[in-house]
């Protein structure tokens, strides 16, 4: 990396594809066939750098863009191909570790279904076109009306670039769409403790009481939290209490799992607060009298009725929280995924305040000194807005990248109708997903391992860093371009000021970061790239506490129908993992199902509906129905049915297409009253058996160890006695 960019590209040029092709000949054939001469070929380098040695892997730092956590990665490059990703040990986000989605980014990069060439809609069908043709069409149309951008969570210079472009074409609307987010929690934090992104110290807590927050799976920064969780579990070991209607990955690791009625988390929190104040003498400093009155109304007996949790368990939680300090209360996931979600988050923060956690396990985060680079965090309220605005004709030209609104939006939002009302739609994507298929122009993007970029991790402790993303190899599909390059070109064509100096996005990024870091030295730039990140100035925040609005009431009409939980899972995520065979074949952590969707049901419910494990069931809401197979176990509330998000694509390549079902599509229009987040756990569905029992693809058919000593257990007391407090 100590050469100019051209040289860099040069060395990335491979020593031929010998290696991979070779590997495939495998050991099937007798050796005389493989002891061949002149059958395989090898292409020499033109002028490689000193450190490029064929047969020896070189590691380059970059940033994972699988979710908005922004983990640092190292990619192993050999013979010009990136072979394996590992976590970057220098990154404060993931400390050298990586989740399955990070590992699988390679398959996105090498995906056979990537878009190779630009496509333009002609006579109703997308046909391949040249870049010039596509860009010309975009330039022609993009000034023809009110323009808008749809992205996922976006940050760093890509955000700047997209917004510059938006400004240049005279648009103002930017919808950051993200299905799996912590928007409700962050909004509550911002309102109540005056910091949208406080630092959460799992490792300092002795007890964690989590209301649905799947911090090991889908909450803000899973790998970082998993690392903190590991510290939390080292002796003296903390206790994890998870309350949620359907077991998440975090719930699967809980010492006490409380299966509660969907939507009753706020009441549970109030009940715990009541027990704390009345039975454990917790004063509740800083909590308003109005809230205290509310708490007093929620004695455990009442709450037990609302949540369908035994009184004893509520009191046990309170006792545990009172006895072990510091503790930590979190809310997210299914707790915030209903109309009353904000209250659950507010109640969680109220508990933290009561227990004195604010300032110990929840501390102030740091604010970026350059807010224009900061994350625009996507949320599903934006998705709703997008649908409404599009339907109202407020958008004429739409640019979409990094989001798949047509897949994510429930039918009840009428997204497709709105989409069709938009005059001209441009999708920048590397995969032909549902949204790209419905676009007028599709621009093929380079994968995240071929592209330049900068990212602000969604969560950071201590210092704030700008995570750098650099290409690890030459584009697999030569006719694809980086997101920054495309948007830069579009912005230049649209006449955005100040961009003329930059030939490409790399030039822009480099000079922007040089300006940011006030250095122009080649050496330091290489240092940034080698570290995969660079520190940027940030300002401290200060936490305060003022009660949030807690509305405990649930207007739950008990009509005998089940509550659908569209559960977020690590792996498929919001659907972006469905085209990667590794993730498809990586069993879900709890149900262990692969390659298909499933619907979790409690045995009691299943019995009453006459459903057996593996039966196809028909799940019908007011706005549609899906049919999938039942997975029956006791990790779900009897009044709920959980279907994972992520499958059910009608596009997105051979692995994703027609695989499983999409529960998002049948959600009703309910949303969180405060933030407008689409409620994922508030839709009532009727369920009936659709017969036909076909075996499900699962890692394991058994749930128990049958007396074998496979996972042995030891009580925490015993462990503390033998391993001590250290």
């Amino acid at each position, binding site marked *: 990396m100590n050469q100019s960019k051209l040289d860099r590209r040069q060395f990335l040029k491979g020593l031929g594809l*010998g290696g991979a092709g070779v590997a495939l000949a495998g050991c099937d054939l007798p050796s005389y066939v493989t002891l061949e001469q002149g059958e395989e070929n090898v292409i020499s380098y033109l*002028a490689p750098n000193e450190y490029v040695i064929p047969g020896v892997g070189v590691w380059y730092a970059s940033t994972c863009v699988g979710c908005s956590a922004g983990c640092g990665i190292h990619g192993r490059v050999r013979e010009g191909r990136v072979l394996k990703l590992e976590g970057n040990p220098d990154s404060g986000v993931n400390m050298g570790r990586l989740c399955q989605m990070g590992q699988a980014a390679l398959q996105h990069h090498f995906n056979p279904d990537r878009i190779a060439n630009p496509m333009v809609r002609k006579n109703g069908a997308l046909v391949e076109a040249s870049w010039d043709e596509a860009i010309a069409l975009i330039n022609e149309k993009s000034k023809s009306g009110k323009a808008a951008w749809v992205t996922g969570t976006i940050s760093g210079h890509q955000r700047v670039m997209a917004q510059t472009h938006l400004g240049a074409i005279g648009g103002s609307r930017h919808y950051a769409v993200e299905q799996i987010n912590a928007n409700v929690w962050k909004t509550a934090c911002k309102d109540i403790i005056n910091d949208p992104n406080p630092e959460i110290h799992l490792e300092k807590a002795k007890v964690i009481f989590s209301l649905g927050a799947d911090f090991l799976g889908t909450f803000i920064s899973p790998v970082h939290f998993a690392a903190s969780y590991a510290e939390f579990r080292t002796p003296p070991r903390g206790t994890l209490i998870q309350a949620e209607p359907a077991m998440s990955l975090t719930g699967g690791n809980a010492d006490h799992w409380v299966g509660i009625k969907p939507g009753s988390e706020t009441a549970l929190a109030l009940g715990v607060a009541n027990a704390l104040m009345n039975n454990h003498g917790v004063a509740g400093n800083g909590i308003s009298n109005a809230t205290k009155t509310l708490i007093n109304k929620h004695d455990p007996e009442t709450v037990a009725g609302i949540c369908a949790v035994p009184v004893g368990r509520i009191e046990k939680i309170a006792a545990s929280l009172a006895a072990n300090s510091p503790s930590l209360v979190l809310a997210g996931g299914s707790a915030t995924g209903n109309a009353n979600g904000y209250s659950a988050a507010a109640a969680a923060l109220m508990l933290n305040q009561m227990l004195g956690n604010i300032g110990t396990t929840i501390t102030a985060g740091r604010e970026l000194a350059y807010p224009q680079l900061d994350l625009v965090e996507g949320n599903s309220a934006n998705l709703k807005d997008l649908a409404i605005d599009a339907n109202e004709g407020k958008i004429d030209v739409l640019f979409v990248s990094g989001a798949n609104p047509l897949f994510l939006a429930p039918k009840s939002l009428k997204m497709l109708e709105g989409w069709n009302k938009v005059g001209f739609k441009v999708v920048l994507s590397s995969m032909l997903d549902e949204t790209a298929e419905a676009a007028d122009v599709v621009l093929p993007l380079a994968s995240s391992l071929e592209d330049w970029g900068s990212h602000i991790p969604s969560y950071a402790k201590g210092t704030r860093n700008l995570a750098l993303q650099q290409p690890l190899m030459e584009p697999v599909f030569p006719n694809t371009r980086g997101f920054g390059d495309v948007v830069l070109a579009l912005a230049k064509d649209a006449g955005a000021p100040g961009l003329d100096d930059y030939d490409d996005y790399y030039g822009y990024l480099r000079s922007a970061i040089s300006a940011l870091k006030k250095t122009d030295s080649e050496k330091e730039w290489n240092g940034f790239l080698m570290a995969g990140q660079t520190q940027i100035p940030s300002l401290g925040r200060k936490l305060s506490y003022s009660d949030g609005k807690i509305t405990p009431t649930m207007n739950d009409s008990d009509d005998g129908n089940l509550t659908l939980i569209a559960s977020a899972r690590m792996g498929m995520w919001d659907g972006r993992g469905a085209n990667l065979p590794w993730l498809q074949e990586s069993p879900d952590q709890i149900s262990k199902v692969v390659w298909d969707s499933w619907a979790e049901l409690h045995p009691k419910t299943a019995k009453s509906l006459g459903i057996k494990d593996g039966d196809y069931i028909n799940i019908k809401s007011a706005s549609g129905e899906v049919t999938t197979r039942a997975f029956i176990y006791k990790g779900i509330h009897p009044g709920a049915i959980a279907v994972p998000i992520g499958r059910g694509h009608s596009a997105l390549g051979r692995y994703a297409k027609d695989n499983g079902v999409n529960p998002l599509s049948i959600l009703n229009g309910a949303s969180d009253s405060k933030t407008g987040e689409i409620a994922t756990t508030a839709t009532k569905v009727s369920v009936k058996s659709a017969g036909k029992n076909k075996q499900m693809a699962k890692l394991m058919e058994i749930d128990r160890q049958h007396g074998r000593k496979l996972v042995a257990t030891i009580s925490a007391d015993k462990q503390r006695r033998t391993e001590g407090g250290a």
Partner: protein
Amino acid sequence: MVVVLVGAIIVIAAQILDQKLHYTSTDVVPGPIVPGTQYPDEAFTGIDVPQPIDFSHKIHAGDNEINCMFCHTYARRSKVSGIPPLSKCMGCHTVIATEKPEIQKLTAMWEKGESPQWNKVHDLPDFVHFTHQRHLKRFLFDNQELDVSDAKRVCSMCHGDIAEMTVAKKSRPLTMGFCIRCHEANEGPSDCTKCHK
């Protein structure tokens, strides 16, 4: 009877097949070329492998006595010895022998920025993971009686007398038996996973 015959035929056929596939084994001989070692002195006549440029090893390694590792510079640092990058060729051939047609081919490629596509001559099966660097270390760098200029002698253990060839040609069988005999004679590792993984 038939079965006895069939059994015998199977065993004999296996022998013959094996001999055919793995070439005739001969004993190891003490190597005057590489002192302190023994190596299987087995000949093999490879086929002529066409190359995009008729590179002459004789001129380079033979007549001009260029060290093997001058061009195959990766050999001591990597599993593979590698093909020299085009820039290395051009390092000399911008001035030397520029009038020759083969060199002009090379220059044309260099100017276009593309690399020649060489055909592999010493191509091991893909389940064999041979490493050059360990062998060079063992036979050349750790060998008190040789210095780096003797690289050719070490290389010739497996590659034959490349310096006498024009376009390289296989002159050793490079079968597993060939490897094993050398490993036994020189106390190389006998762990299968060293080469097969």
